């Protein structure tokens, strides 16, 4: 049976950890998922929320982020949508060249792409859908 979790959080990065734990707890309730899978979800969801709050909403307190998780028996689909104007994810390059190593930022989307099984943005670039297999 599918379980759906939905929440809307204000543009405040200090709320990310609690939101991640809430979603992870519901997504894996009653499932004996490997620790590696839970770790991937925690990191990717934390990244997605940080991107949405910092870059999508520009930390504007009048804007919020919507999280919707569809928890199916074999797979999880997570939709993270901000109120911002969106961006073109194709313009974000992988930050793993030697000259990138000293950069303090720019690794968020790279981690999401590598930790999730499938990643897709909507046409406006303000809504991300991440898919993760449970095993």
């Amino acid at each position: 049976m599918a379980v759906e979790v939905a929440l809307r959080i204000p543009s405040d990065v200090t709320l990310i950890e609690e939101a991640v734990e809430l979603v992870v707890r519901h997504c894996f309730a009653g499932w004996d998922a490997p620790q590696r899978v839970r770790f991937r979800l925690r990191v990717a969801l934390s990244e997605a929320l940080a991107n949405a709050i910092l870059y999508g909403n520009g930390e504007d307190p009048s804007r919020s982020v919507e999280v919707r998780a569809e928890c199916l028996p074999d797979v999880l689909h997570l939709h993270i949508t901000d109120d911002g104007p969106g961006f073109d994810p194709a313009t974000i390059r992988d930050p793993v060249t030697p000259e990138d190593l000293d950069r303090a930022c720019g690794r968020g989307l790279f981690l999401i792409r590598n930790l999730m099984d499938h990643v897709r943005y909507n046409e406006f670039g303000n809504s991300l859908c991440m898919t993760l297999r449970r095993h």
Partner: protein
Amino acid sequence: MGFTASKHSSGVLMVQVEGQLIVGNRQELKNTVQEALEHGERKFLVDFTRTGYIDSSGLGALVSISKKVREQGGELRLAGLNEDLRSLFELTKLDTLFAITDTPDQALVAF
């Protein structure tokens, strides 16, 4: 969740990351190291034995801290990363930037 800093008898400042190192608390870690640098500390060990996960902001904070410590002629080492945490450093190739040991004891010997 938080950071605990303590001075080891060898002169190394050990910072334990308890819980997560993420966008919401990275500044606290940066401040802890910055203040220690200003007080003359030059050897730093960040211990991740009790850490759940790190996001890209946390990794970025470590990169910034590492740079500042190097600029002051100091040394920063990381230890206690479990398999999942280590995979983040390998994925981002930051394992080539940091001196990483399995345990805090191994790091202390290496200073």
